[in-house]
C-alpha cells in the first residue's frame, strides 16, 4: 500500500485578508463611535420623531426610574468651580481643593448638599455604587427643601456668564455669532418608566425660575409621515 506523504512543514494560513478586514472594522467603529458618556445613572429615554441634536451648552436634569433627581452642567472647569463655590456659600459649607477638583470632573451627580462632600471623596466606581445601591435619594426638589432650584439658578447664572465670554470672544474673532447659541439650554432626561409626577416636580422647578423652554431627551424613531 502506498504511504500518504504528509507535508513536513507546519500548515500555515495567509492571515493578511483577515488583518485587512479586522482593521477595516476597527477603523469603522473608531470613526463612527461616540462614547458612552459616564453618566452616573442609567436612564432609558422614550423615543420621539424629533431629530434635533442635543445642544452643546446644557443644564441637564435627569430623573431615573425611581424618581431620583440628578443634576449635570456642561462647560469648563471654571463654570463648575464657581457653581460649587456659590452653592457652598449658600449652604454654609466648605469644600477642600480635592473635592472641588472631583466636582469639576463629574458629568452629573445626585445627592443632597449635606451628602456632597462624602460623595466627592469617593472614587468614580464607588460613586456609581453609591447611586445604584440607593444610598442617596437624589437632589431634593420639594418645596420644603428645594436644592434643585438653587443648583439650576446658580448653574444658569454661571453658564450665562461663561456664554457671554464665549460670545464676545467669537465676535472678536469676527465670527458671526448668534447670542442664543451661547445661552444654556435646559434639558430634561426622564426615564420612560418613571411616574410623570416626578418629572412634573422638576418641570415646576424650572417654571418657578421662569425657564419655560424645556427639551426632553429622546431616542430617534421613524416619523410615520415620511413612510406614508
Amino acid at each position, binding site marked *: 500500500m502506498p504511504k500518504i506523504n504528509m507535508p513536513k512543514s507546519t500548515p500555515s494560513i495567509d492571515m493578511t485578508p483577515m488583518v485587512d478586514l479586522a482593521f477595516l472594522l476597527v477603523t469603522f467603529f473608531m470613526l463612527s463611535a461616540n462614547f458612552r458618556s459616564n453618566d452616573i445613572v442609567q436612564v432609558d429615554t422614550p423615543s420621539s420623531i424629533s431629530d434635533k441634536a442635543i445642544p452643546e451648552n446644557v443644564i441637564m436634569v435627569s430623573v431615573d426610574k425611581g424618581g431620583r433627581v440628578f443634576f449635570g452642567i456642561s462647560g469648563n472647569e471654571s463654570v463648575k468651580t464657581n457653581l460649587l463655590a456659590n452653592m457652598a456659600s449658600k449652604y454654609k459649607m466648605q469644600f477642600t481643593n480635592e473635592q472641588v477638583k472631583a466636582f469639576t470632573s463629574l458629568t452629573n451627580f445626585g445627592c443632597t448638599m449635606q451628602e456632597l462632600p462624602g460623595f466627592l471623596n469617593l472614587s468614580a466606581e464607588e460613586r456609581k455604587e453609591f447611586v445604584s445601591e440607593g444610598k442617596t435619594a437624589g437632589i431634593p426638589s420639594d418645596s420644603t427643601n428645594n436644592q434643585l432650584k438653587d443648583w439650576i439658578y446658580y448653574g444658569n447664572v454661571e453658564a450665562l456668564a461663561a456664554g457671554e465670554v464665549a460670545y464676545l470672544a467669537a465676535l472678536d474673532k469676527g465670527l458671526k455669532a448668534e447670542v442664543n447659541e451661547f445661552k444654556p439650554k435646559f434639558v430634561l432626561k426622564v426615564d420612560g418608566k418613571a*411616574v410623570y409626577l416626578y418629572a412634573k416636580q422638576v418641570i415646576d422647578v424650572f417654571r418657578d425660575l421662569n425657564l419655560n423652554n424645556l427639551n426632553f431627551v429622546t431616542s430617534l424613531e421613524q416619523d410615520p409621515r415620511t413612510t406614508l
Partner: protein
Amino acid sequence: MAEIADSGGGHDKGGKKRPKKGSTKVDMTPLVDLAFLLLTFFVLTSTFSKPKVMSLVYPAKPKDIPEGEIPKVNNAVTFLLSDDRIFYYEGAFYPAGNGAGKPATELLETDFGSQGVRKLLTNLNRFVLEKKAGLDEERKRNPIEDSVYLRKVKEFKGDIQALKVLIKTDDKATCKNFIDLIDELKIADIGVIAPVDMMASELELVKAKTGK
C-alpha cells in the same frame, strides 16, 4: 584592545557573501489578535443612536389664578393620561349637575396606536393639516423659501380654528405616556400644547374608568 570584526576579506570559501534564503513571511497572528482586541473594545464602548431632544415650551406660570376657574378655550381637546391609558373629551368640561344646564362630560378612551390617537388628532386638526397640504402642493409648483414656508405653517398652527390640546396627567401616568402623546401631537402639527393640572372632578371620572 578593540577587536575589529573581520569578515574574512574574501578568505571565506565561495568568496561572495549570500543573504540567507529564509522565507519573507511575517507571522500575522499577533497583529490579528491586536486588531480583534481593538475591534471588541470599540464595539462594546460605542453607542450608535445619538440622543436627540424634543423641545416643549411651557406656558409661563400665571402669577395667581383663582381656584376652580376654567380658562375658556375654543376648539380644544383635553387628554387625560393614566397608567398607559389615554382618555379625552372635546371642548370645555362640565361636571355632573352643572349650572349651565349642559350634559355632564363623559370621557372617551383611545389608545397610543396609529388607529387610535393619531387618527383622532388627524381628524380634529383637519384645518391645519389641510392648509399645510395645500401649501405643500403650491410649493411644488412654485418653490418658496424655507423661512416663508415655516412662518406660514406657524400661522396655521396659531389660527383660531387650529386645534389646541390640553394634557392632564394623574399620579399613575408615566413619562413614556406623556412623551408619546407629545410626539403624536407633533406628528399631527398641533401648535398649542398645554400640560396642566388635573381637576378633582376629572380625576374622579378617570378613577371610575380605570377602576382604581
